[in-house]
């Protein structure tokens, strides 16, 4: 299929957005105390690792990093079938922590709902905040991001793709039109 492709962010654009988000996270939370990052597989986990690196550069502290796979918490088993499961890996307690949940693209909000349900099964965080690289609109649930790289108005039939280089370094965000 021939797709019309627009670059929303190039590599340096992504880098700048992530650096800005890192600063915003630290500012909002008055530093890195009790702060943990949990990325949503797959994509959000790579971005969370980028944020962790930047926070370490800024604050000199390595904050805990986890990953959550939300397949077990999906609400569309009957329509989409048994999708392959990824691993959830949160090797630290969440009780009383400020969890920054990280995803690449915020769309309907259903993934975030599933991810929050998953986090609750691991403990009782003090707060959950949401960081996304792209917010493309079309929410179906009352969910909004606390930290956004770029707001991109899209049509439903369009597709937003975050691309990664071999070392899981984000390289570009593209808008694909059908």
């Amino acid at each position, binding site marked *: 299929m021939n797709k019309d492709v627009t670059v929303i962010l190039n590599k340096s654009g992504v880098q700048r957005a992530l650096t800005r988000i890192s600063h915003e996270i630290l500012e909002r939370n008055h530093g890195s105390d009790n702060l943990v990052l949990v990325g949503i597989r797959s994509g959000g986990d790579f971005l969370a690792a980028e944020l962790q690196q930047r926070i370490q550069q800024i604050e000199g502290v390595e904050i805990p990093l986890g990953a959550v796979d939300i397949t*077990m918490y999906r609400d569309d*088993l009957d329509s989409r*079938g*048994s*999708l392959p*499961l990824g691993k959830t*890996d949160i090797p630290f307690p969440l009780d009383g922590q400020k969890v920054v949940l990280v995803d690449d693209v915020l769309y309907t909000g259903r993934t975030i709902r599933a991810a929050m349900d998953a986090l609750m*099964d691991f*403990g009782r965080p003090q707060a959950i905040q949401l960081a996304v690289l792209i917010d493309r609109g079309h929410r179906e649930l009352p969910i909004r991001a606390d930290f956004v790289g770029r707001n991109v108005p899209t049509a439903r039939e369009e597709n937003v793709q975050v691309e990664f280089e071999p070392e899981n370094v984000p390289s570009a965000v593209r808008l694909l039109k059908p």
Partner: protein
Amino acid sequence: MSFAQKHILGIDHLSREEIIQILDTADSFKEINTRAIKKVPTLRGKTIVNLFFEASTRTRTSFEIAGKRLSADTINISASSSSVVKGETLEDTARNIEAMHPDIIVMRHGASGAPHYLADRLDCSIINAGDGAHEHPSQALLDAFTIREKLGRIEGLNVAIIGDLTHSRVVRSNLYLLNKLGAKVRLAGPGTMIPPGIEKLGATVYHDINQAIEGADVVMMLRIQLERQGKTLLPTLREYSRFYGLNPNNLKLAQENALVMHPGPMNRGVEISSSVADGPQNVILDQVENGVAVRMALLYLVSGGEETEG
């Protein structure tokens, strides 16, 4: 990639890729069993009936826990096989259960082929939890999961399975699975317990268990059940233990870190000596633990079994 099987009737009908998909899925589920809150909402609203025509504590409990950890409603029904002969037929029993709209029936039955019979007649998914002397797919999958977890691979391993090969559904499912995943299987047991042609399922058959154990990476002992298997097959359990039991001496013939496995329940002092059953090489309780994750994987995969483009 979705999972293409609606039923799990045996390993025979699964491809190598499907087996690996099940093991990988189980790997993801295993983590849940160590959480404080051991429950995910994956199968919320699904109803699973454990229909057991034969007594089984381990397998039924394992399936029940697996279903509950996935938030499905699980109901246990124990029926007597003998009541099938007189009175209600298997089809009627099953139709009555189906009228209550379960999504999955997990079935244990003493007659080989009974789950296939139901799968032909009912709309819901059927998971075979052991049929006669035919197959016990979830057992073979949890065995493979445990081997892969402990030794890192299955391909190229030498696996010795020892005991009553004639009446064992565990051995048949393991033969299919281990061959599909590239292991080499050796079998051994008394002359009265080796069914004709079993080597054609992919195994070398030995009468001397020492030959089967020598150099093996895994030694799997089968439960001996005189009361079920008939009095003409063996002189005494004492003699069986001497010639076909696993003990510290013959275990030395295996690889140094060979795994000792048993599908349970064990007869200590008969097919396996207590010192081996409790020894450092035994992974028998790991098998039980992994059984829950493997059964979660089966329940999850057949639930979305019918592919629909989404």
